């Protein structure tokens, strides 16, 4: 499933958030978008997933303009988890995840055993099966986040876009979620696009890194090419020392400038 953006520009009033972005999301890889606050990461993700329409440029899903494809059809190919998603308080985890099956159902089509099976396995994958009858207001921030990730997974789309899926999670669940995503990539051939803040996590899990600065792509490529001392200084204004280990790049931070 191919997702590309050609010359995407987007502005809120006079303030241009994205300017002329060229992006191609590599297939069956984990791509991580990195960049400082307000550089347009979330806007880019929303544009790529047709939540907002870029004022200039075009997003192509499998070569077709995404805004001309019926939305329900897109929803079978691409799912997007927005930043800090919200749902009704009294809804149970089970019911929430069932909403992920919505795009696959015709108006009168019943919720079948196949759907139930999918919901069950996704709940097991995110480790919430035992809590499936809890309602959203009884969950911790991390459980909530995992519940919404499960909803996106239940959509069973080849493309997964997630805006800071590890926010609110402790280290254990950060690894858990990212391992889960890596598994989905390896076993189910999913294409995954993430916004992350943690450079270590990005370099550990990202096959492809896109570094954004002020609404333009500053650098993109493999982590050791992109996350260099100079680039990080340029984009984040930090002194960072990349160290190569067996796992990949690790960073030692000394100070901000």
């Amino acid at each position: 499933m191919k997702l590309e953006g050609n010359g995407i520009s987007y502005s809120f009033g006079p303030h241009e958030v994205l300017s002329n972005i060229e992006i191609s999301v590599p297939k069956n890889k984990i791509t991580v978008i990195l960049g400082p606050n307000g550089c347009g990461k979330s806007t880019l993700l929303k544009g790529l997933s047709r939540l907002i329409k870029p004022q200039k440029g075009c997003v192509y899903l499998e070569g077709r303009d995404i805004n001309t494809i019926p939305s329900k059809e897109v929803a079978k190919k691409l799912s997007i988890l927005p930043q800090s998603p919200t749902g009704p308080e009294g809804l149970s985890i089970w019911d929430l995840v069932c909403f992920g099956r919505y795009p696959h159902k015709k108006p009168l089509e019943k919720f079948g055993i196949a759907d139930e099976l999918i919901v069950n396995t996704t709940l097991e994958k995110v480790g919430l099966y035992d809590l499936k009858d809890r309602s959203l207001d009884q969950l911790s921030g991390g459980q909530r986040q995992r519940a919404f990730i499960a909803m996106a997974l239940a959509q069973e789309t080849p493309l997964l876009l997630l805006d800071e899926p590890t926010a609110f999670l402790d280290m254990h669940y950060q690894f858990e979620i990212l391992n889960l995503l890596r598994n989905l990539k390896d076993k189910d051939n999913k294409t995954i696009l993430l916004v992350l803040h943690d450079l270590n996590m990005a370099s550990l899990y990202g096959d492809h890194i896109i570094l954004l600065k002020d609404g333009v792509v500053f650098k993109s490529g493999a982590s050791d090419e992109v996350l260099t001392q100079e680039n990080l200084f340029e984009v984040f204004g930090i002194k960072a020392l990349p160290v190569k280990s067996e796992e990949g790049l690790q960073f030692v931070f000394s100070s901000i400038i």
Partner: protein
Amino acid sequence: MLKKTLILLTLCLIISVMSLKAGVLKFSLFNMSPDDYLVFYTIRLPRTILCWLLGPLLALSGAILQSITKNPLSSPDILGINAASSLAGLMTLVYFPGLPYSYLPLFTFAGGMIAFGLIFLLGRRMSPVSLALTGVAIHILFSSITSMVVSINSLQMQAALSWLTGSLWGKSWDHVTLAFIPTLIILGMVLLFARNLNLHQFSDDTMKNLGSRPNFSRLFFFIISVFCGSLAVGLMGPVGFVSLLSPQAARYLVGNDLKKVIPIASLIAVFWLLFADFLGRVILQPIEVPVGIITSIIGVPCFFFILSRFKRGIAQ
């Protein structure tokens, strides 16, 4: 769910029978003289059936508005839609007295759509509280114009005033025919799209992600809700609280899934109308108290009860 539906259905049937028997003329349902039968068939039966048709309309208009505005305080009476419908209906009755009453719903719908337009212009992207307040303002606007129309035309007011309080008096089989098909079609249609309506519990981004078009869906359901509310106003005049409170009571009983909320809320509304109509005919015999007055008298304490539950919910 099945048990609750059956209980409510039984209650509605019992009150139907009671209301068929209630009135100045007393008779047994199984042993009627020809005169009794005439009263039963031409006056009481259509009234009772009309309650069964108008109840779902009121419940639907409230349940839909509450979902799409994500606001438990929404309903066509709170948002001023009913006030606009009533004004349009009143003006039709006063200025075109010769028009057949079957045209009334057309005018009430037009009035409701004007209020809808105002809410849409003023109230978009508003928090639940400001939306409710905007609605209250719109309500006051239209009800003061209504009072004005009433005071400058006070001579020809008798029929119009009875309509304005929301009354089932003198409703005939013609009203039943007028309500029958739209109610069934809309009830079926909304249940068919209930899954989409359920998505309005989420943010617009999540709705879009799931392949729904939030703005289009909101517009579509809003118009359906205005249509339901105005049709009910057109047929019996404005009746307060039923569309606001029936869906809330139903949510309390069966949760938030509209596939369950809509049937239950409809039955609650039917029961409420039947009960109010029954009381109205019994308490001050031989005078009949209009159904709209009784629903409001019952509605106010229920409203306070639900408000207190909200407060507790927020406190927790």
